[in-house]
């Protein structure tokens, strides 16, 4: 056993040496060097498109395009991609969906490179990380492959266009419109949000408050913004708390899929069912039972079928040279009609889609 202890004593010294070397290296480099301020954006310049669009160019036939979702078997994105693939049938293109089984930041990268090798005409991506996919997407673009981001954007310089499901302003304003319709334009209501610092939620709430300034909402009063932290239990309790604190409460908007389901669950099992309006942003599968039992009359989200359809047409229009992604160009998107390319190559699908008893069974996500 003694021999062992002599062996033990030596090890730390070598580490001390390593540590010292490390600290010395640190000291040597501490003065001067490449810092965030001195390094001028490592993202690289985007492949600025100089091509001009020909809005009258016909859609090419036999376009090869691939949808790369955040993760395969994500029910929502599967629906989007399926719609996009069947849209490709309308213009005689060949579309497919490939993707990683995990939604980690980097797992999409090897798929992008494979798609480049397969010489696809366009890659449609819902990005797990706006920057991790950037390098390979730029390589793809340098080889003439068009890149469309949808659902979740990449850094703008790494794609030609971004298909945004709904603009923040439209979401905020249309939520208020919907609530006003359901509450007959009068009464107290509350907002049940996710976390207090969730960027998207706060933007929507800001536009809700803007919309409320219009005279037609004079009889509606926002009494409280509660936060359920996107936690089912907490959102449930917040709902309970709201109804106790505000006995005259007539409505709740929950612009979060967790919040709306929790609020609906509380209301459906309480005396407030049928008296308090619940609406917001939710998914049909979560909300189906509450729509059927009458707790929730209408709620919103976007229509994933239309999202995939639009993305598919955008890819085809890019490949065919109808658009290049510049602001002001017009995208002809089959049955959806026309959409104009906005700033930063953003194309907005449109106002959120309203789900109710009549259409909810057409959706599975």
């Amino acid at each position, binding site marked *: 056993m003694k021999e062992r202890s002599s062996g033990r004593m030596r090890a730390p010294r070598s580490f001390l040496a390593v540590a010292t070397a*490390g600290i010395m290296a*640190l000291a040597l480099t501490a003065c001067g060097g490449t810092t965030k301020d001195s390094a001028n954006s*490592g993202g690289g310049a985007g492949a600025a498109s100089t091509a001009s669009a020909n809005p009258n160019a016909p859609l090419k036939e036999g376009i090869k395009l691939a949808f790369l979702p955040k993760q*395969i078997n994500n029910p929502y994105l599967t629906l989007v991609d399926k719609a996009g693939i069947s849209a490709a049938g309308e213009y005689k293109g060949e579309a497919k969906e490939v993707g990683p089984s995990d939604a980690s930041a980097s797992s999409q*990268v*090897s798929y992008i490179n494979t798609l480049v090798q397969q010489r696809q005409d366009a890659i449609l991506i819902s990005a797990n990380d706006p920057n991790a996919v950037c*390098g390979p997407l730029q390589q793809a673009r340098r080889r003439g492959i068009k890149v469309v981001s949808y659902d979740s954007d990449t850094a703008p310089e790494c794609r030609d266009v971004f298909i945004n499901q709904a603009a923040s302003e439209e979401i905020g304003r249309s939520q208020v419109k919907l609530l006003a319709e359901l509450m007959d334009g009068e009464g107290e209501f509350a907002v049940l949000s996710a976390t207090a610092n969730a960027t998207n939620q706060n933007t929507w709430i800001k536009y809700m408050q803007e919309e409320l300034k219009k005279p037609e909402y004079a009889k509606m009063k926002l009494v409280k913004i509660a936060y359920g932290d996107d936690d089912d239990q907490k959102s449930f309790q917040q709902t309970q708390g709201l109804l106790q604190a505000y006995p005259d409460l007539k409505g709740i908007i929950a612009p979060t899929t967790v919040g709306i389901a929790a609020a609906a669950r509380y209301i459906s099992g309480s005396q407030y069912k049928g008296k308090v309006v619940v609406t917001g942003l939710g998914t049909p599968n979560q909300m189906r039972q509450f729509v059927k039992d009458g707790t929730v009359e209408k709620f919103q989200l976007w229509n994933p079928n239309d999202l995939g359809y639009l993305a598919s047409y955008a890819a085809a229009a890019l490949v065919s040279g109808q658009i290049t992604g510049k602001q002001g160009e017009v995208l002809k998107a089959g049955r959806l009609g026309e959409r104009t390319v906005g700033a930063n190559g953003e194309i907005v699908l449109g106002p959120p889609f309203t789900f109710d008893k009549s259409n909810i069974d057409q959706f599975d996500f």
Partner: protein
Amino acid sequence: MAEATGTVRGKGAGAGRFVRWDVVVTALLVAVFFGGVGISPDFGNTDNLSFALGDLGEIALIALPMTLLVVCGQVDLSVASVLGLASALTGWLWNAGWAFETIVPVVLVVGVVCGLVNGLLVTRLGLPSLAVTIGTLSLYRGLAYVVLGTEAVSQFPAQYAELTTTNVPGTPIPYQVALFVLLAVVTALVLHATGVGRALFAIGAQEDAAFHAGIRVKRIKLVLFVVSGLVAAFAGIVYTLRYGSARADNGVGLELAVIAAVLLGGVDFDGGKGTLGGVISGVLLIGLLRNLLMLNDVATEIQSIVTGLLLIVSVLTPRLAGVVRERRARRRPAAAPA
């Protein structure tokens, strides 16, 4: 290099009469390569191969110290978490305005400390490395989230980022592959041509015997864990630059890919047997096979099943060969009990 195989013979006589698994894996690799070239026109071009090799960069790097660890009967499951912590730290310090040249040594020192913690827990407290590193896997990943949360930091200096995405000028060889080759040669020499290497095999085969033969078992293990931490932290920096995104969740699950490659390469998980050449073949086989399957649009689930089966076969075949060997040996009257 007479003992180039590095196999400690004694667990069964006449091993040479059987084809060794690392040779089988290398043969499989060659078969997949030429088969791939035949099947898919996009597979054999330099662009694709250079990308496929570059994509293996971090796994290949970490597999080097992992091979040494597994040969001496240890394992380090915390490597991917150290990678994530290194990535998170790189991002955090970069955001804080540190010079990149300063960040690198600091992050490497943190990697050394992570390895040191693993090594000390294993050697001082005598805990099994599997248990210790399952713990630190969680611990280091947790720290990564403490450092950076769910934020993603990007825009690292272009001159360093390029090193991870470009090839050595005039060749289709990515820089990280060139570096890997260099380190692999060093590791192979250490494992197969030095006293330290022989000591590793001895520890893996019979730790007590090795100790009584005067090998500084604990010290060697400690150093290996530290090297493993250091390499994982370095891989974390490479990963961050290559994807241009520092995140706390970078490399989640990567430890399994590394261990899969080591096992596929024919290193015995119980220690004492294996070759670095086999591991390198294992890394390449998994990488090229996956690339080939992806090029042919084979579904992700099937890709996963194929690699899983390959792994099971790789662990099973040498075992079966061992059983056959033992039976034959028993039949011979002169055979001494192992």
